[in-house]
């Protein structure tokens, strides 16, 4: 918890603008136009790359230092979450399974 930062609020409102632009991208203009071929190909990979770039350092590193111990609750929790996803294809189950592994290890054992 911290105090509200006006600049962060501005960024949050701009993120709302990003939502509008991304979700309406191809009907922002009613004139016909199309994306260049290379950009369309790039669209295949950018979302998965962006998510992974955010998520992986949050699991495998502490402030950018690759973790040196296997005694880290995040490792086991993320693995359990991914397994749960591929078992039932359900994001909710991923969170539940991951937290069921995370909380005992993190709060109980201090990993």
């Amino acid at each position: 918890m911290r105090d509200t930062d006006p600049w962060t609020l501005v960024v949050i409102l701009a993120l709302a603008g990003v939502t509008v632009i991304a979700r309406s991208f191809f009907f922002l203009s009613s004139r016909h136009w199309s994306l260049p071929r290379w950009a369309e190909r790039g669209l295949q990979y950018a979302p998965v790359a962006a998510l992974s770039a955010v998520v992986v350092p949050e699991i495998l590193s502490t402030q950018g230092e690759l973790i040196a111990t296997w005694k880290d609750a995040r490792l086991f929790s993320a693995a359990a979450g991914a397994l749960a996803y591929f078992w039932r294809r359900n994001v909710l189950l991923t969170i539940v399974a991951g937290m069921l592994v995370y909380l005992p290890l993190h709060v109980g054992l201090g990993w």
Partner: protein
Amino acid sequence: MFFDALLRRHPEFRIGVRDMAPQAPGIAAWGLMTGVAMVKSGLSTLEAAAMALFVFAGSSQLASLPLIVAGAPAWVILATGFCVNLRFVVFSLHLRAYLVHLPLWRRLTHGYLTADMSYALFTQRFGAPATDAQDSLRQEAYLAGNCCVNWTSWVGASLVGIALANLIPTTWGLGFAGILCLVGILCSLATTRLRIVAAAVAGAAAIAAYALPLKLNIVVAIAVAVILCMTLERSPRLAGSRA
């Protein structure tokens, strides 16, 4: 568009609500955890509430959290948010034929409110865009009903999560639920071999380039992964094969 009485009174609105209702608990649970994660990762209550009310895009909210807390510059946060949202750009290409005849502000409002689940249900119910005004209104009313349930359950649950988060000690590390949620979405997007390659490369590059200032490691990682995969596409063994 559920605040438009004309759409709300249309019988198709009810059908839209009914079709979305079974998804509501799942959306609400995700919204609840996002609300908790926003506060636990360090946003103030007001900032978290503004995010829940206006951004209305779980994955971009969660992806921007570590960047906001680390004090990354606005353009990096917005660019990351946009990249995470690129799947909606693909959806908008599909939805264009259904919505393009509407006035600009109606198009934008429909676009803004149409998240993953509404897109899936809407395009499932209407295989082709309407050809006359009556049908077009029908489709709009269905979409509005759909989005109404989605928006209410997401925003309502997020606000509950924000309120409850303050009662839970930070040491529990509940913010990690947000990362787990992104892990789930990440798994759901990794549908082809090349996309798995993109995820692995981007993850490794993001750690390798972590020392870069301004959280530029995220931008570098996306660029490296996308360029590499577009190059690998030329290899017939990898391209087009499902994982």
